[in-house]
């Protein structure tokens, strides 16, 4: 099907979408790479080319590395907990229990609400409800607000993130479980596989494609956590709970060090790209066809 006026087709169908994409994603991305080589402060008309000085600045920025380390801890905890919890709940929710659709829909609700609102809701829960519970029951765990202690505030952030993300992953795992073929399960049962054995040798390998998706989604979301971080702790107490994304934001827009901030953002991007690339490669290798 060859036609004339290909140029007109291109202008009408392809150009508008391409323009949006290039103007908002590609051009800023490339320009961002250039920014890391300048000393722009966000206001000045002139930028000077300063080579790799900004990357030296990144190396010297101890706070960045602290926040990056914290982000790694956070990512590991969140990814593991979210996936274990969601896998387990999805398993229970595909056993044919009454009202399982209601449960699935309910668990998903946090995903409909923006991170800012969720963070504020939990801030109230941690700083007032739990403290009150502690006073009423004399339970030391809740005696003081979790958000005023660096370690506990970090745990609070993990709790909220797990709560927020697991509903989404439940849906994906449920879809995975529903897709398991009855024949294979029956055959496994006839061959005498039950319980844990069946789970490990039959169900897990067949569920690997869902695991790939869920790990990828949780990884990329956890690395880039910002909204909940901002509204729940805002880095408090004393910046001890500021994750890498928040640090980048503050470096650029609060300290006005755009070059260093952008260099850190690029480093973060490379880390996320490598980690999720490796993860997809590793889990894809384990996927099998029924």
């Amino acid at each position: 099907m060859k036609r004339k006026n290909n140029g007109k087709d291109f202008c009408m169908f392809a150009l508008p979408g391409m323009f949006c994409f290039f103007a908002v994603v590609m051009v800023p991305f490339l320009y961002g790479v250039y920014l890391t080589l300048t000393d722009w402060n966000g206001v000045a008309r002139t930028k000077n080319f300063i080579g790799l000085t900004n990357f030296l600045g990144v190396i010297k920025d101890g706070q960045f590395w602290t926040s990056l380390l914290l982000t790694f801890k956070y990512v590991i905890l969140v990814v593991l907990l979210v996936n274990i919890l969601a896998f387990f709940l999805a398993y229970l929710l595909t056993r044919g229990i009454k009202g399982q659709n209601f449960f699935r829909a309910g668990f998903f609700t946090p995903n409909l609400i923006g991170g800012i609102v969720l963070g504020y809701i939990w801030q109230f829960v941690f700083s007032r409800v739990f403290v009150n519970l502690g006073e009423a029951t004399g339970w030391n765990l809740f005696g003081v607000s979790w958000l005023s202690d660096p370690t506990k505030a970090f745990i609070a952030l993990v709790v909220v993130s797990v709560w927020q993300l697991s509903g989404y992953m439940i849906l994906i795992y449920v879809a995975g479980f529903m897709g398991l073929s009855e024949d294979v399960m029956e055959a496994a049962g006839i061959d005498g596989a039950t319980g844990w054995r069946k789970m490990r040798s039959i169900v897990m390998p067949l569920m690997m494609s869902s695991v790939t998706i869920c790990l990828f989604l949780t990884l990329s979301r956890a690395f880039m956590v910002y909204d909940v971080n901002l509204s729940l702790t805002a880095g408090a107490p004393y910046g001890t709970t500021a994750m890498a994304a928040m640090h980048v934001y503050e470096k650029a827009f609060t300290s006005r060090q755009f070059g260093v901030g952008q260099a850190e953002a690029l480093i973060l991007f490379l880390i996320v790209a490598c980690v999720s690339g490796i993860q997809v490669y590793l889990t894809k290798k384990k996927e099998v066809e029924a």
Partner: protein
Amino acid sequence: MKQNTKGSIKKKTISMLTTVGLIVIFAAYMFPFLMVVINSLKQKRDIIKSPFSWLFTIKGLSFDNFAKAFTQMDFLNAFKNSVFVTVSATLLVTLLAAMLAYYIVRHNNVISKLTFALMVASMIIPFQAIMIPLVSIYGGMLNLLNHRLTLIFMHTGFSMAMSVFMFHGFIKGSVPIALEEAAYIDGCTRSQTFFKIVFPLLKPIISTMVILNALAFWNDFLLPSLVLSDKKLLTLPLSTYSFYGTYSADYGTIMAGLLLCVIPIMILYIVLQKQIISGVVAGAVK
């Protein structure tokens, strides 16, 4: 026979236990929402005294908190802004992405191959890696910040790659080219073919993409916070943020404000639950 009844009793117990376990976990999940609902009706002193006491034990419940939050947040205005931005950006990205994807599928030339490859690769770039140059270009050079249209344009650009990717897969898999050839022979122009024949066939993927994009736009905070600062233009998440900053000690009003933000989307969820859930799953699994 006896074995059988024993087995079914065991099965029933397991199913009972699972249900009970699920209810407990579910209650824990819903607990924060319950707290918001209960405390949105109380006065500050009652909240401090006891955030969990049930409503009927407390005197002086009222909807005052809601009235206060409604005006302090400039709720109606923020709601309007959110609707305007979300609806326009969703429509725009759906239309442009479908057309671009259609072009890419049907034209196997260098431009479409290159564009598609770039788009797929770009999906891994997190927003944070672009936000600084974005502000520098659109704020510093072009002076376009603080317009809702700029935000709509940026939302469209950022969700373009993902949307084109999804449309591309769908068109390639389920839109037969024979149909278009028939339309062509019948004298349809390219755009008639697209809007009258192809676009209606895309319904399933359109509903998935509308849901995914609209949810993301509605709840987004970081991008709007960089683009909009004028008080009249704030979207709901932004006005929640500034409202919280000013009234954070006034718990009752805060809870009412948070609930106000949640209500519209909950109503939508109750109405469109099936579509939203299947859309989200389809969007992730592809």
